[in-house]
């Protein structure tokens, strides 16, 4: 599993209170009832802390699935050096 996706999976399990949750690049909000617009922002703040990066408001609302989020984080980490 991609290391960014693996770290995201831990975060998602913590926030969505689901220890069995498996994250794939295609996983989206539609796959979990507990993942709504509200928990979405909390997920992103957890991700910001874990990867020591910051997202803009547009980025937070702008991704559709876990793969896109992982890509966004990868780009941000590369830009950081």
């Amino acid at each position, binding site marked *: 599993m991609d290391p960014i996706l693996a770290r995201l999976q831990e975060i998602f399990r913590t926030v969505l*209170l689901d220890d069995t949750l498996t994250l794939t690049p295609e996983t989206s909000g539609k796959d979990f009832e507990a993942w709504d*617009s*509200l928990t979405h922002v909390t997920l992103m703040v957890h991700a910001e802390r874990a990867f020591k990066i910051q997202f803009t408001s547009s980025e937070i*609302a702008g991704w559709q699935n876990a793969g896109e989020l992982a890509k966004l984080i990868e780009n941000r980490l590369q830009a950081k050096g």
Partner: protein
Amino acid sequence: MDRSLDLYKPDFWYVLAVGVLVLVPIVSPALRKWAWGAMNVAFLGVLFGLPDLRRASSLLERHAVADAAALVANSGLAAVCMALVIAWITLQAIQWRRAGVLPLFFGGLTVAGLFVIHKLPVQTLYDWQHLREALEAVGLSGTRVQPLKSVLVTISFSYVALRMAEAMRLVYEGRHPAPDLPSTINYLVPFHMLAAGPIQAYAEFVAQPAVPERLTASNALRGVERIAHGLFKKYVLATIVSRACLTGFKAPLPFLGAEVLFFYLWVYLDFSGYSDITVGAGRLLGVATPENFNRPYTARNLIDFWDRWHMSLSRFIYRNLFIPVQLTLLRRTGPQAALWCAGVAFSVSFLLCGLWHELNVRWALWGVMHAAGLVTVNWYRAWLQKTLSREAFNRYRANRGIRVAAIVLTQVFVAITLWVATGPRE
């Protein structure tokens, strides 16, 4: 005279038919953009009527150039066209980094000022001394405010204001380039979304293909079918509900509760019917038009409700108010305070959402009620998750009886808040 968009009148349908005939064969992106812009301006011409060019020409013959210019400039169409050019220049200036925050400040202040003029009665505007002085300082004496207000009402400025606000923010943040003149027109005043939205996200507007896929017979049929569906909801079902069940809340007490529910049903049929018509028209025109409703009557709580009702507005609030407020608070407090942060974000978002509908106490109360409802749902859900095991929580969610009760409770709550906001005024 009320010149706001009325789908009973043939104007909208003429422009839609001409728009489809003109736009569908165009394959050049630049030509399509300009043609769509011209179509939107033409519709404004239909709404406002053209300036009296014969009189302007006779004034010119008498060398009264200033009077002729004033006659044209004072027409609603010219005023909106000038405002669109100013909006375009403002967005270009916001993009111009050297100007700093000044163009954004000017744009924001202008949009906010026009919004206040749009929403407040003229008398109220002039009853407040500071507001009166501010209006007079920019040359808006009492006799000039009413025509301006009439223009703003005709184009449903509250929707235009939200589109402009989002475009300004995203251009300022450097997320998207400033639009050119035809794109500014097409984003701010698309004729089929003019009356009551939907509010297209600026990012979606930018991302849509410059030339849509060719309109196939089946796609055209789906567009027409969607319009027919909307017309049936808006002009048949909503009319039946209105005539049979609504009395303007004059029903005696035992029946008032039923009327409150029927009023909510009428609002849904009327508004979602209109939204169906815009989505169908957008499909025919090849213009991306966001969905506004997704079976809100099945929502089992208020969070779910706002993911289904007036979705283009709730997503606008989510992107531009809720996320920035919650994010700022969460970064300061940490994710462990998520519930409190969400509570503040809900309160700010829905108070402003209420005041966006109407600048009065009743709509502010509507916003407070929705914020309180959303906070309650959020806390209740967190409490359930903390108290119940995962299996028990899933059983709770799947329980049919609880689901039905939750849906009924949600719908009744929404209906009551609507009555609070729009019910009879003494």
